[in-house]
């Protein structure tokens, strides 16, 4: 049982939770994730750790409402508990002084990007962050990203905040004016696919942090497998970060939709249940 000690509402659909997990708070590094099971009936879902406080013994997870599990999680309040949290899982981000790092975050992907931006900055890099979302509502953690970035470009699809445009436009602009030594790309699958095409085109070494379906998160089930450089890899133990140029994003997107029908049905049932309460 892990107690929720803080909650921050970023928008109608995006919530941050501070959860007691002392061992994980102490052990985690940038890039790590946890597996969460909300209650007895819950699924096991992977969530990247956004930040942690090893003194208070808490970790922060940023969750976007998508399916039943994320809605259950976001409906919890301080004082409530989450039944199971295990981690930190995955390989930590490889951090070194590359020179200039381009950090690209889309939507809720800005949350897992934050600890990497912080670590890259602390390692001596010049960090330029490009963060984007569909609209102002969905843009999160801008101030925190600013704290560790030398420059931040903000874009929204509809122009409701920052510049109007896609993340790739912001990236192209930066790449056109200065030499980028390393890029980090985190966001929805489709965004990572197109952002990776940009860095690949300019021969910029870049990593993408993948968020696939998982069950156990320890290498046992293989639900998270992706093709990277023609080889099947497991996101949970080999990743979650891979060379962005090598990832088969089309296959990943296809596999992410594997349980779409079941998820939609479950989400509808859940909405009915909540509405009837």
């Amino acid at each position, binding site marked *: 049982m892990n107690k929720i000690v803080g909650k921050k509402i970023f928008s109608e659909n995006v919530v941050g939770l501070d959860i007691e997990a002392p061992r994980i708070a102490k052990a985690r590094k940038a890039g790590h994730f946890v597996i969460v099971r909300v209650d007895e009936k819950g699924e096991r879902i992977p969530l990247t750790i956004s930040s942690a406080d090893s003194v208070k013994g808490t970790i922060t997870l940023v969750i976007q409402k998508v399916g039943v*599990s994320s809605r259950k999680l976001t409906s919890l309040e301080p004082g409530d508990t989450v039944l199971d949290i295990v981690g930190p899982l995955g390989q930590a981000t490889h951090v070194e002084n590359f020179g200039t790092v381009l950090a690209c975050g889309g939507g809720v992907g800005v949350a897992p990007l934050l600890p990497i931006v912080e670590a890259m900055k602390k390692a001596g890099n010049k960090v330029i962050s490009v963060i984007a979302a569909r609209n102002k509502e969905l843009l999160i953690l801008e101030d925190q990203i600013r704290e560790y970035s030398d420059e931040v470009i903000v874009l929204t699809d509809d122009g409701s905040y920052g510049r109007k445009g896609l993340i790739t436009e912001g990236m192209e602009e930066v790449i056109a004016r200065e030499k980028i030594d390393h890029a980090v790309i985190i966001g929805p699958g489709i965004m990572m696919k197109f952002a990776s095409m940009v860095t690949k085109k300019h021969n910029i070494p870049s990593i993408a942090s993948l968020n696939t379906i998982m*069950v156990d998160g320890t290498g046992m089930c*293989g639900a998270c497998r*992706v093709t990277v450089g023609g080889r099947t890899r497991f996101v949970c133990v080999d990743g979650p970060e891979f060379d962005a140029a090598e990832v088969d994003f089309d296959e990943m997107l296809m596999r992410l*939709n594997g349980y779409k029908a079941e998820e939609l049905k479950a989400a509808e049932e859940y909405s009915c249940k909540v509405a009837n309460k």
Partner: protein
Amino acid sequence: MANINTDRTEYLKQERSAPWREELRKSKKNKERTDIHRVEMPSAPPMERARSYVEVNMGLTVEEAVVEASRCIDCPDPTCVQGCPVGVNIPKFIKNIERGEFLEAAKTLKDTNTLPAVCGRVCPQEKQCESNCFYKIKMNREPVAIGYLERFAADYEQNSGNISVPEVAPSNGRKVAVIGSGPAGLAFAGDMAKLGYEVHILEALHEIGGVLKYGIPEFRLPNKVVDVEIENLRKMGVKFETNFIVGKTATIDDLREEGFEGFFVASGAGLPRFMNIPGENLVGILSSNEYLTRVNLMGASRSGMDTPVVKGKRVVVVGGGNTAMDSVRTALRLGAEKATIVYRRSLEEMPARVEEVKHAMEEGVEFLTLCNPVEYIGNENGRVKQVRLQKMELGEPDADGRRSPVVVEGSEFLIDADTVVVSIGVSPNPLIPQSLPNLKVTRWKTLDVDPDTLQTSIPDIFAGGDIVRGGATVILAMGDGRKAAASMHEYLQNKQ
């Protein structure tokens, strides 16, 4: 080790000369005993059980058990015991059943076996104790149904509400950690608790039991049977912590600092193997680990549970082991219209237990032997719709003595499938070796241990079960657990 064996033989002899045993032996002529036919295990009707999760084998009645127990002639040299990886005193427990002392029989089992109700269900007795039975080796007849009797005694005790807790030595104030709560870890914990150690079991998943929970289905091993055995360990003082991944949540060094003096790595075989053939990452193709975990651990087949599972109409399971049988029979229970085993050798070479294959056939599973997948074909949404198979024939025996399959050129054909479960084995879980660079591993990535002591290259770390063996059985894992407990005890006593 020779010493222990001699002691064991002496002990078995001594026990056999107990007055009640002598009396019981005299009560019936051996001829009367050997005239009895082996009992048949009653099972649920195939077509009914194939659509539900009821346990398939229903267990023996008291009368059946007593009669079967009386077949055992209580040999002076009980060869059956040599076939048991945990050295259960088999004649003693069986003779206790014959005389109606069922709780005593259970107690005898638990002297050396932490999980008798589990072993009575899933052990391959036909390859172990029963294959060494007097009936089998001297008379070429059906052996005493040792497995059924083990299950009978363990179930009798579980249902009696009068469960004996093995005696535990006074605390010696020393702490040891077990990594993984599967059969190896549980067996180890039981023995160490008996010796007076404070035992902490650290489990990565949210449930205790390892493969007994996530792997073996309810219809073969009900979870509540496992829970009773776990509860028994709790009563012996064993402490359990779930959601704890050693090497991630805390390192071995952290745990040493917290006062743990010995570690038993029983983290199992983790990673599922795939064949690396075209189309294998299509939607609807999954490992048996994923398939079974979704159903067994996450309850995906029960209503109200959030975890989904693919409910295929035409399910193909690739492989011929017990896990493949568990998967294909699970597919039927999830509503498959057709469930097919695809195996590259013939039925005779199948590694699955004969009983499991028989049950699967009774339930209507189709067997396509001497076939191997070479490609998966998907529809426009990336979901599998067909499997391209290739016919095989048997060639020369390989290193294991099994005839190896050889491709029949030009024999490819297609079958329809909307779900494919790949069940061709697992490789060892890499989490522990990754976190301990000095730990020696073999070229198969299993942990390298001294075969006599199960000690790894790091003195305070011992290992057993599938992380050492690569992929074996519940009972071999438990045997490792017991062996490691004995040698860790010796190691810690010398260190003191």
